[in-house]
């Protein structure tokens, strides 16, 4: 009995030790990747350009709310012009935030495997006890942390600015934040998978094209919903399951305006940033499973790769 307990204790100690080893390695590599971004002034460029976008957004939002307010009694009584303007502008901000998050995701993962291996940067790290799986996990967590932090910060700023300039506050802003975070994590995962197969330039081009394809599929879906075309909706649906960053982004947009009723709700849902697509309750579990599967495939390819 005691020998069983000893073995169980030894196994528990061994598992704890392996876990803490992996966590330490993840911290080391993630810290290294982040330090490179800081040293290369990546964050300075990102912050400056993002501030530029937010300044432009503030000015545009203020102008839009002022213009709409000037319509005054010209607007039909059943149209909530503040909601219509605010949700459209916030939808635009979400789209830009996802795009900027995608740009960052692509650039922080561009060289992670194949590119760094071609330049001879990866080999000195891989021969250390850290192991390839941990290295890949660390790169995912570092890139994911940067991208999620970024989209959350920009999204929060856009929410605050929309509220400050026009007094608009969406229905479910928390779900919007969650959807943006998951969308950008999907992009990071796809980009990391790409970097196990493709050189830097090819991977960058591929990820932007995949991103474009996802957005196009989303627009096709919106058109399909407006036209009641099952063929278009099916195309969109297949693309959304294959590239779920678009589906979760649409779902986030939908959540922002899901509580808007009446004529305003119809117009919002038809608009380019209204979010006609309600993905349903399975989407988040699907995305989590998708991240795991993409990670496992990337790990499998990386583990077998000759460097």
């Amino acid at each position: 009995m005691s020998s069983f307990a000893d073995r169980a204790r030894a196994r528990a100690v061994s598992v704890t030790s392996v876990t803490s080893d992996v966590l330490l390695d993840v911290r080391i590599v993630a810290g290294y990747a982040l330090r490179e971004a800081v040293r290369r002034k990546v964050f300075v460029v990102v912050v400056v350009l993002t501030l530029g976008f937010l300044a432009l957004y503030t000015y545009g939002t203020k102008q839009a709310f002022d213009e709409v307010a000037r319509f005054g009694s010209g607007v039909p009584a059943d149209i909530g012009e503040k909601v219509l303007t605010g949700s459209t502008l916030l939808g635009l901000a979400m789209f830009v935030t996802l795009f900027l998050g995608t740009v960052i995701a692509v650039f922080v993962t561009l060289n992670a495997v194949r590119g760094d291996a071609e330049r001879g940067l990866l080999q000195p790290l891989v021969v250390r006890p850290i192991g390839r799986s941990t290295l890949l996990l660390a790169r995912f967590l570092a890139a994911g942390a940067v991208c999620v932090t970024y989209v959350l910060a920009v999204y929060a700023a856009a929410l605050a600015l929309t509220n400050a300039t026009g007094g608009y506050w969406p229905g479910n802003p928390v779900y919007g934040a969650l959807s943006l975070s998951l969308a950008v994590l999907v992009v990071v995962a796809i980009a990391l998978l790409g970097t196990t197969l493709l050189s830097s330039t090819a991977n960058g081009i591929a990820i932007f094209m995949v991103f474009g394809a996802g957005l196009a599929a989303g627009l096709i879906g919106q058109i399909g919903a407006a036209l009641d075309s099952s063929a278009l909706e099916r195309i969109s649906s297949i693309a959304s399951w294959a590239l779920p960053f678009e589906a979760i982004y649409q779902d986030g947009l939908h959540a922002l305006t899901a509580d808007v009723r009446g004529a305003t709700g119809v117009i919002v849902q038809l608009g380019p940033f209204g979010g006609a697509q309600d993905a349903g309750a399975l989407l988040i579990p699907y995305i989590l499973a998708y991240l795991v599967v993409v990670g496992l495939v990337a790990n499998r390819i990386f583990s077998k790769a000759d460097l």
Partner: protein
Amino acid sequence: MPDALHVTALRKTYGSATALAGVDLRVGAGELVGLLGPNGAGKSTLTKIACGLVQPTGGHVEVLGHPCASKSARSKTGYLAELFRFPGWATADEVLVLHQRLARSDGGPDERARLLALVELSAAAGRRVEAMSKGMQQRLGIAQALVGDPRLVLLDEPTSALDPAGRRTVRELLDGLRERGVAVLLNSHLLSEVELVCDRVVIVDRGATIAEGAPADLVVAGGVEIETASGLKRFPDAGREDIPDLIGGLVAEGERIYGARVVAGSLEDTYLGLVGAQEG
């Protein structure tokens, strides 16, 4: 005590191209083995398999009794790739800190200072890699390979970018490793360097071992030269023990003898003879 490196029937193919066709190799603890061969012979592939960068197609490789590429093997191995880079934004000291952490070395600043001094980079500890010459980067690469006191060091062309003084530094460093019982597999095209420092040499060509032994055993004597009144006489197949008979014969023919010497062969002669014979 297990061999530092034990390679058995190692094979590697890339599509239809064969890089290694069944190589056997042993590097004992504290032994310094030179791996020679022409470009494309499979030297770098063998080294990369030993440190887990490349997957073998067949055969078996053990590092200090552990399967190569296992965590246990990697924790005891230091490696310098032929083509490598460190991030330009990092300083020499930061590169070593990173590798200390990944290798779980508790050597701290003392180890870094010792390694930088060993490769004569003490003054460049705070210099960014992008501001270093190629030779300095190669020396930093050697220091990196020695982080964590590895028991086996795999060096792939470690002196290709070094000047003669740098090469001498590396030779002294290799002698120091041998004294500490560290095994080294040195992959190099510089035959004279290999001849000077290695205990044993393995020559591979087209993925197979074609010769193996101590440099002195591999070197074939270059014959005997006897200086006579009528000029220098060469006897390419003769050895030291033949000199008295050769002189006796020449004197009997009426020659006056001014000197005699055994012409020392070199590893280069042996190597070129073997590799040339393979290509022929």
